[in-house]
Protein backbone atom coordinates (compact mmCIF):
# COMPACT_ATOMS: atom_id res chain seq x y z
CA UNK A 1 0.00 0.00 0.00
CA UNK A 2 1.56 3.26 -1.14
CA UNK A 3 0.94 6.97 -0.70
CA UNK A 4 0.96 9.70 -3.34
CA UNK A 5 1.34 13.45 -2.94
CA UNK A 6 -0.21 16.08 -5.21
CA UNK A 7 2.59 18.41 -6.28
CA UNK A 8 0.04 21.14 -7.01
CA UNK A 9 -1.33 21.50 -3.47
CA UNK A 10 -0.07 18.71 -1.18
CA UNK A 11 -3.24 16.59 -1.12
CA UNK A 12 -2.27 13.02 -0.22
CA UNK A 13 -3.76 9.78 -1.56
CA UNK A 14 -3.24 6.62 0.47
CA UNK A 15 -4.06 3.30 -1.22
CA UNK A 16 -4.94 1.80 2.17
CA UNK A 17 -7.44 4.54 2.99
CA UNK A 18 -8.81 5.28 -0.49
CA UNK A 19 -11.08 8.30 -0.77
CA UNK A 20 -14.56 7.02 0.15
CA UNK A 21 -15.92 10.59 0.10
CA UNK A 22 -14.87 10.78 -3.56
CA UNK A 23 -16.04 7.29 -4.52
CA UNK A 24 -12.67 5.49 -4.23
CA UNK A 25 -12.83 2.49 -1.90
CA UNK A 26 -10.11 1.76 0.68
CA UNK A 27 -7.50 -0.57 -0.82
CA UNK A 28 -7.77 0.90 -4.34
CA UNK A 29 -4.37 0.78 -6.01
CA UNK A 30 -3.05 3.96 -7.58
CA UNK A 31 -2.73 2.09 -10.88
CA UNK A 32 -6.46 1.32 -10.79
CA UNK A 33 -7.48 4.98 -10.55
CA UNK A 34 -8.42 6.31 -14.02
CA UNK A 35 -5.78 8.35 -15.84
CA UNK A 36 -8.23 11.24 -16.20
CA UNK A 37 -8.77 11.49 -12.45
CA UNK A 38 -7.65 14.82 -10.98
CA UNK A 39 -6.83 16.07 -7.50
CA UNK A 40 -10.15 16.75 -5.75
CA UNK A 41 -8.73 19.88 -4.12
CA UNK A 42 -6.85 21.62 -6.91
CA UNK A 43 -7.48 19.83 -10.22
CA UNK A 44 -3.88 18.73 -10.78
CA UNK A 45 -3.85 15.70 -13.12
CA UNK A 46 -3.00 12.24 -11.76
CA UNK A 47 0.40 12.51 -13.48
CA UNK A 48 1.20 15.45 -11.20
CA UNK A 49 1.29 13.22 -8.12
CA UNK A 50 4.48 11.69 -6.73
CA UNK A 51 4.85 8.51 -4.69
CA UNK A 52 6.09 9.27 -1.17
CA UNK A 53 7.28 7.15 1.74
CA UNK A 54 6.43 9.42 4.65
CA UNK A 55 4.82 8.32 7.93
CA UNK A 56 1.70 9.96 9.25
CA UNK A 57 2.15 12.37 12.11
CA UNK A 58 -0.09 10.12 14.20
CA UNK A 59 2.14 7.09 13.47
CA UNK A 60 5.31 9.03 14.17
CA UNK A 61 3.92 10.16 17.51
CA UNK A 62 3.19 6.66 18.69
CA UNK A 63 6.25 4.95 17.17
Amino acid at each position, binding site marked *: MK*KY*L*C*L*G*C*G*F*SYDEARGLPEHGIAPGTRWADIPDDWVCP*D*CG*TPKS*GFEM*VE*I*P*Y*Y*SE*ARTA
Partner: protein
Amino acid sequence: MSVRFILRAGERGYSYLPAAGLNASYVAGHPDGVITRHSSFNFHEYQSGIPGLGVMKVFGDETFTPNGTGYNMHPHHNFIIMAFVASGALTHINTIGKIDELKANDYYVFSAGSGGKHSELNIGDEDLQVIYVWVVPGQLLAPPSYRRSRFDPKAGANRITCLVGDEPGALPIGQTFTVSRLLSDGGKAHTYRPSKANGFYAFVLEGEADIAEATLTRRDSIALEGEDKIEIAVRANGTDMLLVETKL
Protein backbone atom coordinates in the same frame (compact mmCIF):
# COMPACT_ATOMS: atom_id res chain seq x y z
CA MET B 1 32.79 19.26 -6.89
CA SER B 2 29.58 18.33 -8.57
CA VAL B 3 27.28 20.85 -10.18
CA ARG B 4 23.80 19.44 -10.56
CA PHE B 5 22.54 22.38 -12.58
CA ILE B 6 22.99 26.07 -13.31
CA LEU B 7 19.68 27.79 -14.00
CA ARG B 8 19.79 31.23 -15.57
CA ALA B 9 17.03 33.72 -14.74
CA GLY B 10 15.56 33.56 -18.24
CA GLU B 11 15.48 29.75 -18.37
CA ARG B 12 12.90 29.37 -15.58
CA GLY B 13 9.24 28.60 -16.06
CA TYR B 14 7.13 31.71 -16.56
CA SER B 15 3.46 32.20 -15.75
CA TYR B 16 1.44 35.34 -16.33
CA LEU B 17 -1.68 35.18 -14.18
CA PRO B 18 -4.17 38.01 -14.75
CA ALA B 19 -7.01 38.50 -12.29
CA ALA B 20 -9.55 38.61 -15.11
CA GLY B 21 -10.76 35.79 -17.34
CA LEU B 22 -10.03 32.12 -16.70
CA ASN B 23 -7.99 32.85 -13.56
CA ALA B 24 -10.67 35.01 -11.92
CA SER B 25 -11.42 32.48 -9.19
CA TYR B 26 -7.72 31.79 -8.60
CA VAL B 27 -6.32 35.30 -8.70
CA ALA B 28 -8.03 38.03 -6.72
CA GLY B 29 -8.00 41.69 -7.62
CA HIS B 30 -9.29 44.34 -9.90
CA PRO B 31 -9.31 43.38 -13.59
CA ASP B 32 -5.85 44.85 -14.25
CA GLY B 33 -4.22 42.89 -11.42
CA VAL B 34 -1.51 40.41 -12.46
CA ILE B 35 0.75 37.92 -10.73
CA THR B 36 3.90 36.96 -12.59
CA ARG B 37 5.68 33.81 -11.46
CA HIS B 38 9.13 32.55 -12.41
CA SER B 39 9.47 28.92 -11.32
CA SER B 40 12.86 27.32 -10.80
CA PHE B 41 11.18 23.90 -10.77
CA ASN B 42 8.24 22.20 -12.45
CA PHE B 43 5.03 23.64 -11.07
CA HIS B 44 1.43 23.55 -12.30
CA GLU B 45 1.36 24.05 -16.07
CA TYR B 46 5.17 24.35 -16.27
CA GLN B 47 6.40 20.75 -16.45
CA SER B 48 9.36 20.84 -18.85
CA GLY B 49 12.01 21.88 -16.36
CA ILE B 50 13.74 20.60 -13.24
CA PRO B 51 11.63 18.51 -10.80
CA GLY B 52 12.85 20.18 -7.61
CA LEU B 53 15.88 19.40 -5.48
CA GLY B 54 15.58 16.95 -2.61
CA VAL B 55 12.53 17.80 -0.50
CA MET B 56 12.19 21.24 -2.15
CA LYS B 57 9.54 21.05 -4.87
CA VAL B 58 8.75 24.70 -5.52
CA PHE B 59 10.92 27.79 -5.73
CA GLY B 60 8.75 30.57 -7.10
CA ASP B 61 9.88 34.13 -7.73
CA GLU B 62 6.63 36.07 -7.86
CA THR B 63 5.53 39.68 -8.36
CA PHE B 64 2.02 40.90 -7.49
CA THR B 65 0.78 44.20 -8.87
CA PRO B 66 -0.58 46.62 -6.22
CA ASN B 67 -4.02 47.57 -4.96
CA GLY B 68 -5.57 44.20 -4.29
CA THR B 69 -3.85 41.46 -6.31
CA GLY B 70 -3.22 37.97 -5.00
CA TYR B 71 -4.34 34.39 -4.60
CA ASN B 72 -7.86 33.86 -3.34
CA MET B 73 -8.38 31.52 -0.40
CA HIS B 74 -7.43 28.01 -1.56
CA PRO B 75 -6.64 24.69 0.13
CA HIS B 76 -3.41 22.86 0.85
CA HIS B 77 -2.30 19.78 2.70
CA ASN B 78 1.10 18.59 3.88
CA PHE B 79 3.43 21.01 2.13
CA ILE B 80 5.50 23.34 4.26
CA ILE B 81 5.05 26.63 2.41
CA MET B 82 7.43 29.52 3.04
CA ALA B 83 7.29 33.10 1.84
CA PHE B 84 10.27 35.46 1.89
CA VAL B 85 9.27 39.05 1.14
CA ALA B 86 11.83 40.95 -0.93
CA SER B 87 9.91 44.20 -1.38
CA GLY B 88 6.44 45.60 -0.89
CA ALA B 89 3.93 44.19 1.60
CA LEU B 90 2.28 40.76 1.72
CA THR B 91 -1.04 40.20 3.47
CA HIS B 92 -1.35 36.54 4.46
CA ILE B 93 -4.68 35.13 5.70
CA ASN B 94 -5.01 31.49 6.76
CA THR B 95 -7.56 29.13 8.25
CA ILE B 96 -5.45 28.62 11.36
CA GLY B 97 -6.85 32.04 12.18
CA LYS B 98 -3.90 34.22 11.32
CA ILE B 99 -4.12 37.49 9.44
CA ASP B 100 -0.62 38.82 8.99
CA GLU B 101 1.22 41.51 7.10
CA LEU B 102 4.82 40.94 6.07
CA LYS B 103 7.19 43.53 4.68
CA ALA B 104 10.66 43.37 3.17
CA ASN B 105 12.91 40.93 5.07
CA ASP B 106 9.93 39.31 6.84
CA TYR B 107 9.18 35.65 6.19
CA TYR B 108 6.73 33.00 7.26
CA VAL B 109 6.51 29.22 7.45
CA PHE B 110 3.00 27.83 6.91
CA SER B 111 2.78 24.07 7.41
CA ALA B 112 -0.48 22.97 5.80
CA GLY B 113 -0.41 19.53 7.46
CA SER B 114 -3.84 17.95 7.85
CA GLY B 115 -5.39 20.81 5.88
CA GLY B 116 -5.30 24.55 5.73
CA LYS B 117 -6.34 27.30 3.35
CA HIS B 118 -4.60 30.56 2.70
CA SER B 119 -4.89 33.76 0.73
CA GLU B 120 -1.90 35.82 -0.34
CA LEU B 121 -2.62 39.45 -1.21
CA ASN B 122 -0.90 42.67 -2.15
CA ILE B 123 -3.20 45.40 -0.87
CA GLY B 124 -0.40 47.96 -0.81
CA ASP B 125 0.37 50.63 -3.36
CA GLU B 126 3.61 49.20 -4.74
CA ASP B 127 4.61 45.90 -6.32
CA LEU B 128 5.10 42.95 -4.00
CA GLN B 129 8.13 40.76 -4.72
CA VAL B 130 8.11 37.49 -2.84
CA ILE B 131 9.89 34.13 -3.02
CA TYR B 132 7.75 31.06 -2.29
CA VAL B 133 9.41 27.78 -1.32
CA TRP B 134 7.52 24.51 -0.83
CA VAL B 135 9.00 21.59 1.06
CA VAL B 136 7.76 18.01 1.41
CA PRO B 137 7.24 17.43 5.15
CA GLY B 138 8.79 14.74 7.34
CA GLN B 139 5.31 13.60 8.43
CA LEU B 140 1.94 13.61 6.68
CA LEU B 141 -1.20 15.27 8.05
CA ALA B 142 0.50 16.97 10.99
CA PRO B 143 -1.40 19.71 12.83
CA PRO B 144 -1.25 22.87 10.66
CA SER B 145 0.96 25.67 11.93
CA TYR B 146 2.04 29.19 11.06
CA ARG B 147 5.12 31.03 12.28
CA ARG B 148 6.84 34.18 11.12
CA SER B 149 10.15 35.87 11.65
CA ARG B 150 12.36 38.61 10.25
CA PHE B 151 15.83 38.92 8.80
CA ASP B 152 17.62 41.95 10.25
CA PRO B 153 19.59 43.40 7.32
CA LYS B 154 21.92 45.38 9.60
CA ALA B 155 22.84 42.66 12.09
CA GLY B 156 22.77 40.03 9.37
CA ALA B 157 24.93 41.79 6.79
CA ASN B 158 28.15 40.22 5.51
CA ARG B 159 27.54 36.82 7.00
CA ILE B 160 25.36 33.79 6.35
CA THR B 161 22.20 33.87 8.48
CA CYS B 162 19.99 30.82 8.91
CA LEU B 163 16.30 31.75 8.50
CA VAL B 164 14.64 28.33 8.43
CA GLY B 165 16.13 25.27 10.13
CA ASP B 166 17.30 24.08 13.50
CA GLU B 167 19.81 26.82 14.26
CA PRO B 168 19.13 29.25 17.14
CA GLY B 169 16.96 32.13 15.94
CA ALA B 170 15.69 30.28 12.86
CA LEU B 171 12.26 28.72 12.35
CA PRO B 172 12.49 24.90 12.68
CA ILE B 173 10.38 22.75 10.34
CA GLY B 174 11.16 19.17 11.35
CA GLN B 175 12.84 18.37 8.07
CA THR B 176 16.45 18.15 6.86
CA PHE B 177 16.15 21.48 5.14
CA THR B 178 17.47 24.96 5.76
CA VAL B 179 17.15 28.37 4.13
CA SER B 180 19.83 30.98 4.79
CA ARG B 181 20.30 34.52 3.61
CA LEU B 182 23.54 36.12 2.49
CA LEU B 183 23.43 39.90 2.17
CA SER B 184 26.99 40.93 1.43
CA ASP B 185 29.04 43.90 0.34
CA GLY B 186 31.17 43.57 -2.77
CA GLY B 187 34.58 41.96 -2.76
CA LYS B 188 33.91 39.68 0.21
CA ALA B 189 34.16 35.89 0.26
CA HIS B 190 31.97 33.56 2.29
CA THR B 191 32.08 29.85 2.98
CA TYR B 192 28.97 27.70 3.35
CA ARG B 193 29.51 24.27 4.90
CA PRO B 194 26.72 21.85 4.05
CA SER B 195 26.58 18.22 4.99
CA LYS B 196 28.18 16.26 2.15
CA ALA B 197 25.08 14.07 1.85
CA ASN B 198 22.83 17.07 1.18
CA GLY B 199 22.08 19.16 -1.86
CA PHE B 200 22.79 22.89 -1.99
CA TYR B 201 20.91 25.54 -3.96
CA ALA B 202 21.89 29.20 -4.21
CA PHE B 203 19.55 31.81 -5.71
CA VAL B 204 20.64 35.38 -6.40
CA LEU B 205 18.00 37.92 -5.41
CA GLU B 206 20.22 40.87 -6.30
CA GLY B 207 23.80 41.50 -7.34
CA GLU B 208 26.44 39.04 -8.51
CA ALA B 209 28.55 36.27 -7.03
CA ASP B 210 30.81 33.44 -8.19
CA ILE B 211 30.14 29.88 -7.03
CA ALA B 212 31.87 26.79 -8.41
CA GLU B 213 33.46 28.81 -11.23
CA ALA B 214 30.09 30.11 -12.38
CA THR B 215 29.21 33.79 -12.28
CA LEU B 216 25.62 34.19 -11.13
CA THR B 217 23.71 37.38 -11.72
CA ARG B 218 20.24 38.58 -10.65
CA ARG B 219 17.77 35.67 -10.31
CA ASP B 220 20.28 33.06 -11.53
CA SER B 221 20.70 29.96 -9.41
CA ILE B 222 22.98 26.93 -9.03
CA ALA B 223 22.63 23.52 -7.40
CA LEU B 224 25.56 21.50 -6.07
CA GLU B 225 25.85 18.12 -4.41
CA GLY B 226 28.54 16.10 -2.65
CA GLU B 227 30.13 19.21 -1.16
CA ASP B 228 31.06 20.04 2.41
CA LYS B 229 32.58 23.44 1.64
CA ILE B 230 31.18 25.95 -0.84
CA GLU B 231 33.00 29.20 -1.55
CA ILE B 232 30.94 32.22 -2.48
CA ALA B 233 32.95 35.11 -3.95
CA VAL B 234 30.87 38.28 -4.05
CA ARG B 235 31.42 40.56 -7.03
CA ALA B 236 32.05 44.30 -6.72
CA ASN B 237 28.43 45.45 -6.52
CA GLY B 238 27.54 43.10 -3.66
CA THR B 239 24.88 40.43 -3.50
CA ASP B 240 21.72 39.33 -1.76
CA MET B 241 21.15 35.57 -1.94
CA LEU B 242 19.03 32.77 -0.55
CA LEU B 243 20.99 29.59 0.22
CA VAL B 244 19.11 26.31 0.57
CA GLU B 245 20.40 23.02 1.97
CA THR B 246 18.21 19.96 1.53
CA LYS B 247 18.43 16.26 2.05
CA LEU B 248 18.52 14.41 -1.26
